[in-house]
Structure formats: structure tokens, C-alpha cells
């Protein structure tokens, strides 16, 4: 399988005043296309930092990230914006929906920046809302939706630009266990049937073990364990 994402000695150091915090240290990782990689570790282990670097939201202190044959760690801000727009979908623990937008508008948001016509935006957003089972709630605002529904909206939004990789940062952190399982199940389905590479950060090892194909364990910014699911 070709690699969807590759990191090479990836290091991220945050400087806070005089103190330097090493968030990630020499991470070398190959994420195969179509893989479902679970990243776990205690809080402060660097999971979210890794995900932000993979998603082009942050730039590494040293080391490289390669996606689709391109070194994204060397891209400028505009190129990174395009990378995020076309190749990556992201979902977050706190859903990060725009409160004043309806579900449909939230899903359509990435297309807005991609310059897609209004009618087409609506059509595609509705199609994805149907896929995540929320078509009847398209005109509701995030506050009128349950946590699970909000995360489904967020997933639909992450998928609308047909990304290669879906990055999920603690997507179940704000959900109860039953809904958590539903959401991760949805991600696993997408991974299986749409050949979508998924990288999911979670401290719920149980869920990751159940759904992911690969498991990476981080501690203090270093990989302390890799496993391939059976």
C-alpha cells in the first residue's frame, strides 16, 4: 500500500518564555493509504500536536511531513490552506461548528472557500447530511442538536471536499459511550467503504482497539509502541 502520510523525524518544540516544551520528538511514521490509525496516549503526550501537524494547522520545528508526494512541512501559508481545503478533513472533540450557521451551512462551509457555486454547495452538503443520517435536521443550528448529531455534522463537513485523509482529534471526548461507538463506527465504515485514510487520536484505547487497523502509542512526545490490529 502506498503511504497517505509520512513523517520523518518530526519534532515540535513550543517555546513559552524561557521554557522549552518538547511536544513531539523524532516521530517517524508511515500511514498507509486506507489505514485506520489510532493514536493514543495520556494527556500531554503529543497526540493533538501530531494531528495538528499532519493537518497542516501547525508547522514542525524540524523534520518532514509528506503527503501525496509533497513535503507539506515546507509549504507556505497559502499552500497549507489549499492542502487543508482539498486533502484533509478534520473533526474535533468540541465539534467546532459555527453556532450561527445551520447544519447545512456548516457542512457547506469548506465549499464556500473552494469557490463552489451556491446551488452546488447546497446539493453536496445535503447529500452528505443524508449519508450521516441528518438530512431532516439540516436547518437546525448546532445548539439544537445533540452531541452525537453535532459530531455527525462535523464529519459531513470534513468529508465534503472529498479528502484523502480524515483526522479526528478526540472525536468522542464529549460523547457518551453508546454515541461514541456509533461515531467511531461511522468513521470505520467510511474508512472501509470509501477507502478513506483515518487518523484518530483518542485516549479511549478500547474504541481504538475495536475499530483501528494500526495503533500508535505516544508518551512524552515519543512513540513507545506500534501495533497492527489483527
Amino acid at each position, binding site marked *: 500500500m502506498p503511504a497517505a502520510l509520512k513523517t520523518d523525524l518530526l519534532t515540535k518544540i513550543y517555546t513559552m518564555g524561557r521554557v522549552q516544551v518538547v511536544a513531539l520528538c523524532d516521530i517517524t511514521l508511515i500511514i498507509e493509504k486506507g489505514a485506520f490509525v489510532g493514536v493514543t496516549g495520556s494527556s500531554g503526550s503529543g497526540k493533538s500536536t501530531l494531528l495538528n501537524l499532519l*493537518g497542516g*494547522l501547525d508547522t514542525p520545528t524540524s523534520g518532514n511531513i509528506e503527503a501525496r508526494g509533497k513535503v507539506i512541512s515546507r509549504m507556505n*501559508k*497559502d499552500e497549507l*490552506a*489549499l492542502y*487543508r*481545503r*482539498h486533502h484533509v478533513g*478534520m473533526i474535533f472533540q468540541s465539534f*467546532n*461548528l*459555527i453556532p*450561527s450557521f445551520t447544519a447545512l451551512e456548516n457542512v457547506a*462551509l*469548506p465549499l*464556500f*472557500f*473552494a*469557490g463552489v*457555486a*451556491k446551488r452546488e454547495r447546497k446539493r453536496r452538503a445535503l447529500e452528505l447530511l443524508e449519508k450521516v443520517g441528518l438530512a431532516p435536521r439540516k436547518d437546525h443550528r448546532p445548539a439544537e442538536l445533540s452531541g452525537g448529531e453535532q459530531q455527525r455534522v462535523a464529519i459531513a*463537513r*470534513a468529508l465534503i*471536499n472529498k479528502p484523502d485523509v480524515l483526522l479526528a482529534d478526540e472525536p468522542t471526548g464529549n460523547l457518551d459511550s453508546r454515541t461514541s461507538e456509533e461515531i467511531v463506527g461511522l468513521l470505520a465504515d467510511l474508512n472501509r467503504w470509501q477507502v478513506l485514510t483515518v487518523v484518530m487520536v483518542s485516549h479511549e484505547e478500547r474504541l481504538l482497539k475495536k475499530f483501528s487497523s494500526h495503533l500508535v502509542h505516544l508518551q512524552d512526545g515519543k512513540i513507545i509502541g506500534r501495533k497492527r490490529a489483527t
Partner: protein
Amino acid sequence: MRLSDYFEQSFSNLWKRKLRSFLTTFGVVIGIGALVAMISFGKGIQKNVSESFKQLELFNYLMVFTDSAWMRLGDPDSRRPEAQDEGSKAVLDDGVIEKIKGIKGVEAVFADIRFPASVKINQKEAFVLIQVLPAELAKSKLMKLRSGKPYIQDDVWSLIISDSLLKRLEVKELSSALGEEIEISTLAFDFSRINPMNLSSLFRAETLPFSRESYAFKIEGIAERMGFGGPTPLRSDIFIPPGVAKDLKKLPFSNVWDLFRSPENQQGHTLANVRVSHPKYIEPLKEAVREMGLQTFAFIDQLEEFKTGFLVMDMVLAVVGMIALCVASLGIVNTMVMSILERYAEIGIMKAVGASNRDVSKIFFFESSVIGLLGGLFGLALGWVVSILINQVINYFLSKQGVPFIQYFSFPWWLCIGAVAFSISGSGAET
């Protein structure tokens, strides 16, 4: 992202914060309104003055006067020392006037003759200075007639009277005065009143050797009073032709100052107006006249001075308007800063789903531009409405003094477009 999307997005964002958007826009409306009203006032005054200069063909006129008259026209203390020696001998008599008539481009020359008189119509009397004006000039554009027609010959007992004087004489229906008879009384020396037996009373100025002479004139035309009392060769409320003026018994001076003039000058006139066929002849004419030892004053130079004055006025008005606009701009900045702070998370989300920094700043740019656009448009409308109101009020008060209706505000197309463009660009630049 499409342009229409940006507009739609910014409208919907502003709509979500209605009160704040309204107040901010209202600030811009007031700022632009003030600026527009100020500038349009400056431009309106300017337009009126230059148009009246043009209408009256004042650029074709040159005033010629003697040095001693210069002293009288200006501040007596500020007379130029060198003028005293060479200039004071020059006389502006009929011979000189004939000479000026011969200069290239000169169409007409007429001495500025004005004398005190009393006018009487319907038992109402007023005291005025009557000006002698050749028929040729009464027919020219210099004379703006409200009704009637100018006299066509120099030897008819007709006159032109201003509408404001008629009003002073309590003539209700102005046009009804046309063709009416009007009585003009002048003062003249009456040597028969000098009683050789009682010269002492004459010396003590108890009795003066003057008598009153009355003449009947026909009102031929009614002149319109100039809206702008700018300089003009016409400086009277009554004009009579020179042919009959000669026959009037009158004092040879209109002003006590005239008596101070040097004896050589006394036969001459104080002032003459020269009309040329084209403004290009003014400069050479000035040269030629100055060589004769006379002083000149060209209206075309006056306009240049006016223009400098207008520029200063425009600047002052614009600065006042700009202050209002600056305050409004701070309002926009405040609103945008608040908006950015409030939407920090939103900006982060937009960037996560692929918005570039440029996309994000464009959203805010469009929002403030929309405020600017609305503020500019409504501000222009506000400035326009306010200027109409002010114009009505000014004209209401001035009409009582016989001043015709004047448009004090002018809205040239560049001001309208400029105000809106300025508002948009100013608001846009703040983000």
C-alpha cells in the same frame, strides 16, 4: 470564494448583529453626510461666483482709475509711495478715454459717473446714487434684466431700476412698474441763492447754494439684483443713459473725497470701465493703460484671488467634514475589532476547513466595506437632504432682502461617486 458569496456572507453577518451594525453605519452616514454637505457648500459657492462672472462677461472688463482714486478705493494709509509722484498727474478725461478706445480689442469705454439723487414713485422717496450707463452696455450681458428691456439710445428719458430698489419704494407688483413714470431729483448749484447781502450765513454753512431739480423718467427695464454681490462695473440701483445725464443739473461729484483730488484731476473722471471683445486683450490693455500713468483692476485677476480663497475654504470645510468621518472610522474599527475578537473561534474553524488568511481577512474586509457602502450611500442622501433644508432656510431669509433664489450647494458627479468610494475604501482599508 465568489464575490457574490462574500457580499451575501457579510450582509448576513452584519444582520446577525443588527443594532451594532446599524449604529456603526449611522456613524459613517453622519460623517459622510457632514463631509458631503461641507464640500458641496464650498463647490456651490464657487460655482455661483464663477458662473456669475461668466454670465456677466466680467472677464471682458477692466477698471481704469487714477492714482488718487486708488487712494480712495483702498485704505488711504496703504497707498504706495511711488504712485504719488508719477501717477498723480495722470488725468482720466474724455481725451484719455478716446485714446483707450483706440487700443486693440477694446469694445467700449465708459466713465464711472455716479451722482446722488432722490427717486420718487407713488409718493415714496428713496435716496440713491444714480449711475450713467451707455445704452450699448445696458444691452450687454452685464445687465441682467428681470423684466422689461434696456434703453436702446443714449438720449431717451428712460432708465433701468433694480428690483430691490422697487421693493424699497414699496412697489408690490414689480412688472406693473414697467412704463411708469418715475421722478428723479438732483441737487445742483444755485448761484441765485447766494445773497450778497448775507454772505456770512453762507460762510457759516447755514444756507448752502443748492437747489433741487426734478426730472421725469420712464421705467424701461427692471434689473435683477445679483445673488452674489461680487465686483461689477454696475454699482447702482438706477441706470440712465449718458445723453440725458448730460442735461441733468447735478453736482460734479458724488463723494466729498472727490473734492480733495488735485486740481489738475478735477476735470477728469475718477474711474472708467473698459470692455474688451475677448479676455486675451486684458493683459496688453493693462500694460498700455499703466503706461498712461493710470491704475487698473481686472476682474479676471480678482477671480484668481477668489480661487485661492475658495481653495482655503474648501480645505477648511473638508477638514471639518473629515473630523466627523474620522470619528465614524473609529466606530468601524471598534466594531471590526469586537467582531474579530468575538469570532476568534470561528476564524480558527474557517482556517481548519481550508480558508487562507486572505480568505478570512476578505470576509472582514467585505463586512466593513458593506458598512462603508451603506454609510456612503445613506450619507450622501443625508448630506443632500440637509443641504436642501439649509438652502431653503438661507433663501427664505435672503429673499426678504430681495436676493433671488440661489442654489448654495452643488453636487458634482465626482463628489457623489467620490464620497461613496471614499467611504468604502476608507472602511475597507481599516481591516
